């Protein structure tokens, strides 16, 4: 059981350009917050910052909490924040099972127990018996599911989705979206998704924020294309810092 993902006055800038103005928000476990914005607006950069892999050219400040744990001073591998990219990024030199084993928590000790856990996860995802396969032989949808399984097996306390449905065709897209949100809900972790596709935001059925880039500095506002099912911004805990 994890706590809320909370951002305190997070700002990111590149050289003199402010990408993310001071941002406060919190996402409760099981909730999905969607951050929208055109490409190059700094959405992915924010995820990099949260994940702890921000390239050195960027400057950032602010604090990040998961529950009562401050993660912003931790190394990425200690944060327990999982990221799903639009590419599955399965390690091509490892089999499907080895990919999952790479993600699976080390606390599960015996080889047998690990293999069973992996096989169970695959079976749940409709991929029973795929463990010894070369990832390159899987279809796009299968690979995407394996990538999510790998992420979840690491037992993250928060999930970051970086346009994860972008490269899938329409049919797969809807199916995989359902799969992802169902899994995320089942895991009971806060989810932050960035996308520039409104249907993704609709499917997420959560609050939406929008980055509006401007020459004098970006601003972040509650999303204009709110979905019917969306909760009020305030209840999602997102506020835009004053003065910007």
């Amino acid at each position, binding site marked *: 059981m994890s706590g809320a993902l909370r951002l305190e006055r997070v700002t990111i800038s590149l050289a003199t350009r402010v990408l993310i103005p001071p941002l406060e928000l919190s996402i409760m476990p099981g909730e999905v917050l969607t951050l929208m914005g055109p490409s190059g607006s700094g959405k992915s950069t924010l995820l990099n910052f949260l994940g702890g892999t921000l*390239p050195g050219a960027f400057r950032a*400040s602010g604090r990040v909490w998961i529950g009562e744990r401050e993660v912003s001073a931790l190394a990425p*591998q200690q944060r327990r924040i999982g990221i799903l*990219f639009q590419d599955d990024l399965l390690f*091509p030199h490892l089999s499907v099972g080895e990919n999952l084993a790479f993600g699976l928590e080390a606390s599960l000790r015996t080889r047998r127990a690990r293999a069973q856990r992996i096989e169970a996860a695959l079976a749940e995802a409709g991929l029973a018996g795929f463990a010894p396969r070369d990832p390159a032989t899987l279809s796009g949808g299968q690979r995407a599911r394996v990538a999510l399984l790998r992420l979840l097996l690491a037992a*993250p306390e928060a999930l970051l989705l970086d346009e994860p449905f972008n490269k899938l065709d329409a049919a797969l897209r809807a199916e995989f979206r359902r799969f992802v949100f169902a899994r995320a809900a089942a895991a009971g972790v806060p989810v932050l998704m960035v996308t520039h596709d409104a249907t993704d935001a609709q499917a997420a059925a959560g609050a939406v924020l929008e980055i509006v880039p401007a020459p004098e500095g970006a601003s972040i506002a509650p999303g204009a294309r709110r979905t019917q099912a969306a909760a009020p911004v305030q209840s999602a805990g997102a506020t835009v810092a004053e003065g910007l």
Partner: protein
Amino acid sequence: MSGTTLQRGLAPAPAPVAMPFWLRQAPRVTLALFLAPVAAGLLGTVLPAFGYLPAIGGRAVTLAPWRILFRQPGIGTAIGLSLASGLGATALSVLLVFGCCAHWAGRQPGRIGRSVLAPVLAAPHAALAIGLAFLLAPSGWIVRALSPWLTGWRQPPDIATVQDPYGLALTAGLLVKEVPFLLLMTVSALGQLPVARTLEAAAALGYDRASAWVKLILPQVYGQVRLPIYAVLAYALSVVDMSLILGPSNPPTLSVLALQWFTAPDVRMYFPAAAAALLQLAVVLGSIGVLRALELGIGRVGRCWIAAGRRRSRAAPVLRLAAVGVCGLTLLGVLSLVALALWSGAAGWRFPALWPRHWSAAQWIRQIGTVAWPLGTTVGVAAASSLAALLLVLGCLENEQHGAAVPARRSLWLLYLPLLVPQIAFLFGMQVLLTVCRLDGTLIAVIWSHLLFVLPYVFLALADPWRSLDQRYARTALCLGASPRRVFLRIKLPLLLRPVLVAAAVGLAVSIDQYLPTIFAGAGRVVTLTTEAVTLASGGDRRMTGIFGLLQAVIPLGAYCIAIGATAARRFAPQPTEGRS
């Protein structure tokens, strides 16, 4: 834990991954290892070039060494010869390589090409030059194949086909060696561009393949191979060992003149020798400057030319010619090595016999004892310098990916300094530095001096694949809770195993090729296959040179085969990384 560092407003992002100390220092350590000897070496050349070297009585700063230098007979011819062979070989190599790549663009040059190139790439310059000298000589293989049935010659004609006064044989030798190198560099740079898609798109716009390649691919690929081209230029202008074997002797090229004076019995020749070495440096830097200016000029004209929109060219036959040229040069290279192999077992092989009349294993048997020691030294030095280079390069590249400061990255071009500064210009000074550190004549000194030349090539071989690996693999692995060390060992190294092994093999080949650094840093005490081969070549003995040259060529070749074989045997081949077509 309260993050005090986070209170400072727009502070630099806290280093997301705490970099271990050694990793943070990697570029600095690398540059220090590099710049100290080169800088000390240059100083040790500049001072005597202006008359200052107290050990042999030079205590005043004067221009006398330059006056003596320019009074030396044949100095003008020597400079001209260096320029002609160096510039000629570089220009031709570049044209041939680009022409050949354009000709084969979109078609599969295949593995055959690469496996034929490998021995020529792996063979040291000296060994190749000796074999080539035998091919081209008036009493050589080519003339023998035609004599006497076609030429009527029962004795070799008195025509200067090697060591000719115009340096043509030297130019040919440089081409045989440098074209495969540039080709390899260009092909691997092309691997990172969407060549096929670009050509298809251009074809859809009505451009034929030659025009499309020159107008679209060349401008993109040139930036990537600029440095290798500069390295070829610097090497071709200042080569010593090939020039001793294939170049004229009266006068020889500038670098050989400098070496002759450095080693003249009359030590006062040191002063003009240092001046000549400095002049050599000026020739190289000047040529690079001219080339850079040419690039800019051609780039400007080229833009207009590209914008003019002409779609058809008559270049296709020219490109085919370039491809034929590259094949011909490769054939010459392979035949040179074959000739060496034959000589190592030949007893009597006089003109005009095409094959040795008698065979003898006596040479090999007699040499088994004497070869063992230099063989061990060669392999040891090559392995140590390649390993050190690999560690430093990996350290620098990792440091860079962990968000190193930009200046540190920019200063990495200094790594290429030893490739751009002629060896003759800093090796003497470096020897003095080593002597002061009491390191001269030790294996450490030789390994260090080899590292100067091995590291840049390892960097060249590894930087692009390493940088083009999708960084999100590493990020994903980190977010899965893997430590940076585990990410490096389990994800990055296995994914990049082939480039790493190939880079190691390149390092071995470069180390085995080093002649002057071994002589200077080893104080002549450290005997490698190359010092033996060049020394024997100075004695003109093709049989012994054949043995040493073959062994020299076989080691790096073996390393290449292991690098390729080891990675081919892997279960899953790595996928093409981002950006590759």
